[in-house]
């Protein structure tokens, strides 16, 4: 009897597929709901010792109700199955996951928001990553960088001009948010989903009275998020320019992706999989991406006179002052302040995403301890250590100061230990 009901469910699933193919989503959903009920009946008709069968039927029933667009029924039967004996532990865990998903969707709906079908699953791997565990500071830092990138994508898709110093507008903040699932088993993994504010459709076009666009199709954000990320990782300039014609936004995206690249020490790779769409995609961020992206960033800078020798500083980024266009490099006992070149595109969240991390500044000494930078990118802890070892003087104290006199172009930057001294404005 139980298996007859299951066979009926199989027939209904096949018929639903046929209706989907013809574009009759409503009819297909109705058949899926009937198939779900058949699976429920089959579950309760199956003997309790048929544990594996009951597990498959329970999973199938909940899944079918969800596919049919009936989350309340799905939730109800999931609870009934969980209250039963003779359900495998793995199925119980899967049903709990499904319930969590459905609850998240309901919470968003209650707040006038909708979860988009896109799901970005991130997987972190490296020496400091355990099975389902990871250093909190590392994870929160990476999530912060991902959020900064995602927020920029939302702003870009919304037609906002590039924001350099201003805070995120209320309109964008209210329109979309990023939700994170609980970590999953395996290497440290978590999923992010976009939540979109439900807005009444505009009668004539997508424009708001202030000229901004409404994100009509939230999946556009996910598509742009992934396409830009992939183009930067592949160093595919043609695709990147096609996806982001605006040079300032393009440069900002390249920097934000660069910030997310693992340093290879604590974190060896970050893999992101975009799910919930017809063509799931996968991309992997590894330290090998650093050099090509740095080269790309370098090429984006305005051309400098060849007579100006460029030098590099490596240190911890301790502070960013957007008003005075300066950054403060550590370590704490030997901080130094460096000024941005006038044509340096100083974008708040690009720099904030590197705070308390090693960075490499490229620029020119300006006399005294002065240094003007035209490029700043993340550096690894190894680079920082190498730099410190190469420039240790005076009993091992680290010095980050530029020489008192300008070096010749072929002379390496000589560094000496010194006092905490701010770079003078030149």
């Amino acid at each position, binding site marked *: 009897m139980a*298996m007859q009901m299951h066979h009926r469910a199989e027939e209904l699933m096949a018929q639903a597929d046929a209706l989907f*193919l013809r574009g009759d989503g409503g009819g297909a959903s109705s058949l899926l709901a009937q198939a779900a009920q058949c699976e429920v009946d089959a579950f309760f008709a199956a003997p309790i010792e048929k544990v594996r069968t009951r597990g498959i039927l329970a999973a199938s*029933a909940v899944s079918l109700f969800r596919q049919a667009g009936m989350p309340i029924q799905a939730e109800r039967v999931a609870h009934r199955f969980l209250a039963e004996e003779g359900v495998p532990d793995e*199925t119980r865990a899967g049903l709990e996951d499904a319930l969590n998903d459905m609850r998240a969707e309901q919470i968003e709906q209650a707040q006038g928001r909708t979860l988009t079908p896109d799901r970005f699953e991130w*997987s972190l791997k490296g020496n400091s990553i355990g099975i389902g565990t990871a250093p909190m500071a590392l994870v929160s830092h990476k999530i912060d960088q991902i959020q900064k990138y995602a927020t920029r994508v939302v702003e870009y898709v919304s037609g906002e001009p590039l924001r350099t110093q201003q805070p995120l507008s209320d309109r964008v903040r209210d329109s979309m948010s990023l939700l994170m699932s609980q970590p*999953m088993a395996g290497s440290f993994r978590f999923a992010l989903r976009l939540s979109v504010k439900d807005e009444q459709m505009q009668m004539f076009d997508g424009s708001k009275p202030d000229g901004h666009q409404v994100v009509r199709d939230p999946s556009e954000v996910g598509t742009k998020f992934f396409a830009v990320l992939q183009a930067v990782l592949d160093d595919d300039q043609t695709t990147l320019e096609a996806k982001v014609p605006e040079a300032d936004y393009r440069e900002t995206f390249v920097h934000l992706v660069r910030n997310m690249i693992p340093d290879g020490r604590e974190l060896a790779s970050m893999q992101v999989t975009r799910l919930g769409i017809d063509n799931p995609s*996968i991309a992997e961020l590894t330290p090998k991406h650093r050099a090509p992206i740095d080269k790309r960033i370098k090429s984006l800078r305005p051309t400098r006179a060849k007579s100006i020798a460029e030098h590099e500083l490596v240190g911890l980024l301790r502070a960013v002052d957007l008003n005075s266009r300066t950054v403060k490099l550590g370590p704490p006992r030997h901080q130094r302040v460096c000024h941005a070149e006038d044509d340096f595109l100083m974008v708040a969240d690009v720099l904030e995403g590197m705070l308390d991390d090693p960075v490499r500044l490229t620029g020119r000494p300006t006399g005294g301890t002065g240094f003007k930078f035209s490029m700043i990118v993340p550096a690894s802890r190894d680079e920082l250590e190498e730099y410190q070892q190469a420039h240790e003087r005076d009993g091992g104290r680290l010095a980050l100061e530029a020489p008192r006199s300008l070096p010749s172009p072929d002379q390496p930057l000589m560094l000496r230990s010194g006092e905490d001294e701010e770079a003078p404005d030149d």
Partner: protein
Amino acid sequence: MEGFYAVSAAVALGRHHKSPRTVDVQVGQAVEPYDAEWRAPTEDEKRGCANEADTTCFGAYALALAAVFAHLGLKAVGRAAGGTGRKGEGTGADWLLLPADVEVPEWYMEHPDIRRLEVSGQDEATPGERNSRMKIKLNQTQQGTLRHIPATAAVVEFSLPIVTLAQAS
């Protein structure tokens, strides 16, 4: 197998090829060609497969099931929702497989050799894109409500055409 899965496969293959045609089946580095013949779809059938993504998905079911039968000696004995599905969510369908020489018992899901088949279809893809898709499918066999049942993943690409198979660890 329902007839319309075969029709979907014919339409998806027909975008690139004419019958008969060899279909490669790849497991690891080994590739083996198989002869495939299909009836050309009628105009009505083509119109019925207007949704390209669904046609690719359902056509992939047909080719994947044929490939696991011919190459791995496994036959489809049923299906259940709860796999990762074409959108990679835990709301799709999985096929359930048993060795082809096994007589299918009533409670076939209790059979110790039961496996599930996760299928993904691509109209055109580079080797890198096929590998990426396989990686996604293999990752996903470890998730979802049916993750405790051993799985085989199949990625079907229609322009070559090639069916790539891999066992989930």
